[in-house]
């Protein structure tokens, strides 16, 4: 068992996985690195002593029960939540300094069914939405940069398989289709790091599988590092290079086979969890304390955030 837990001390050393990998020659500087990091919100320690190394091009899932601070970890990586101790480095810079190179998909946001704006418009905002001024209509005919931007938008829409519905008002397409469009929006600027907060939440099973396969394809083909927050590991487990589990106060990270064991997960969650191996070698996690009824916890937690 690679991970050592000390729940009495209120923190879990998360170095087990990285210690194992220390024997391997480092491919390059890590894309994301947390070192004994601690975050507080409203005077409450969300997690502490979190150490996490994500190598470039890896597909990493951040897992754990609702309300333990998975989204806070993502926001710390984005520089939206400051660390009270420890350090974080994202793409070689301090969090918040690598803005243009990060594609970020916040926790599930839904579009009003009456919103009369097309999917393609929402994707285009990913390219230049924060720039001041007004997008000059028909500028594509005059400016090469506008033409290139438009081409890139069409390219990512095709990449995520959204060509068929990108012209419809975004409020009218299904949840899975919206999620594809939002992933396209996050990809428009060719980010080196893609951060997805619960992209599979409230999608039906086929959509979950489709989006998971899409993210894995983007990670592999374009060499994008992916940090994906989820509370259910099963739909993505077969694609993952590394997992980081956050539970009460601390975290454990490593390769799936290191971390996803009955012992580790049971200790993390404090409740019996079984990890089964299917006939074709896939892992399945059974018995996570993850009932849909607890979704409200997370949103209540989110509402307490200062924004």
């Amino acid at each position, binding site marked *: 068992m690679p991970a050592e837990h000390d729940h009495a001390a209120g923190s879990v050393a998360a170095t087990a996985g990285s210690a194992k990998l220390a024997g391997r020659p480092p491919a390059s500087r890590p894309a994301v690195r947390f070192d004994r990091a601690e975050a507080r919100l409203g005077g409450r320690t969300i997690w502490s002593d979190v150490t996490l190394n994500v190598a470039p091009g890896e597909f990493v899932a951040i897992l754990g029960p609702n309300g333990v601070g998975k989204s806070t970890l993502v926001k710390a990586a*984005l520089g*939206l939540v400051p660390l009270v101790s420890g350090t974080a480095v994202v793409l070689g810079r301090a969090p918040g300094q690598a*803005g243009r190179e990060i594609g*970020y*998909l*916040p*926790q599930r*946001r839904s*579009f*009003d069914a009456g*919103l*009369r*704006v*097309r999917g393609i*418009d*929402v994707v285009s*905002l*990913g390219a*230049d*939405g*924060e*720039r*001041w*001024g*007004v*997008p000059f*209509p028909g500028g594509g005919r005059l400016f090469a940069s506008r033409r290139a931007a438009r081409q890139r938008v069409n390219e990512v829409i095709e990449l995520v398989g959204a060509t068929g519905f990108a012209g*419809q*008002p975004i409020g009218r397409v299904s949840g899975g289709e919206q999620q594809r469009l939002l992933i396209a*929006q*996050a990809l428009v600027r060719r980010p080196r790091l893609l951060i997805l907060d619960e992209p599979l939440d409230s999608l039906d099973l086929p959509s979950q599988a489709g989006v998971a396969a899409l993210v894995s394809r983007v990670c592999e083909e374009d060499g994008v590092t992916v940090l994906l927050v989820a509370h259910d590991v099963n739909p993505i487990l077969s694609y993952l290079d590394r997992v980081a589990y956050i539970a009460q106060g601390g975290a454990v990270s490593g390769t799936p086979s290191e971390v996803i064991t009955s012992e580790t997960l049971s200790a993390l969650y404090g409740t019996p969890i079984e990890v089964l191996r299917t006939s074709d070698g896939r892992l399945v996690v059974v018995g996570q304390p993850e009932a849909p009824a607890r979704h409200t916890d997370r949103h209540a937690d*989110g*509402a*307490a*955030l*200062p*924004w």
Partner: protein
Amino acid sequence: MVTSGLAAGAGGGTALGWNIGEDIRQLLAPHFMVNAFRAGTIVAVVAGAIGWFMVLRRQSFAGHTLAVVSFPGAAGAILLGISATAGYFAASIAAALVIAVVPRSPGGRGYSSESAVIGTVQAFALACGALFVSLYGGFLNGLTNLLFGTFLGVSDGQVTILLIVAAAALAVLAGIARPLFFATVDPDVARARGVPARLVSTVFLLLLGCAAAEVSQITGALLVFALLVMPAAAAQQLTARPGLSFVITIALGLAIAWLGLAVAYFSVYPVGFYVTTFGFTAYVASAIIRAAAARLARGRGLRQAVAA
């Protein structure tokens, strides 16, 4: 404007004929009608542009309140003996600031707390307007004009002020247009991308205050929606393409304003009624067109499915 005594003479001596050229010549013969068309054009463009964002942001209630607030502003200004135009702008812009500083519930867009505050401000403003009117005493005709609009007696100076404010408002809107659109459609990502959402929405409320004050001077405080909401709502029904629906909004606004003024000139009834009626017609027509198009598309899809 409000102080004009020409109201009774509007319909006198004019008759609508079948010769359109002659009708237009007659329409533009009096200088006050030329000014009315200038003012109507300026107001229709600025209301269309800002109203388009207002409808998209679902801030119609705020827009209505900013217009209603202009009524006590104008009534108070007349009472104090200063220009009603100044009263319109001062009141609407002050109310926009009040709405902007009200803290919204964190996380969500806070519609509920916002609308409660707006409703409170609106009711108090109307009450103040009623007080100012009764303090001034006996200008009942002026009251109707303040609430339901007039196009008579728009002075050259007033047209100039409308034009300057409109140009400034449109310039600022052009400056913030894209981040404003981003923050409206996709607030979470816009914030993560560094759009100063609070600043952008405050600036937009101020622009909305300017637009509401401008429209109030033509359609009256209670009928601003004719130019602020109806063209944008109709255009957004017709298409989900932002650029196209923006252009349709401006075109509809101009058509509604011009038609309303022209018909009002040949009639004895208030201009606000005609402008609003044409706006309403445009909205109903576009809703019918959209429903018909959706039905057509569904039918075609069904036939294709059957054929396949």
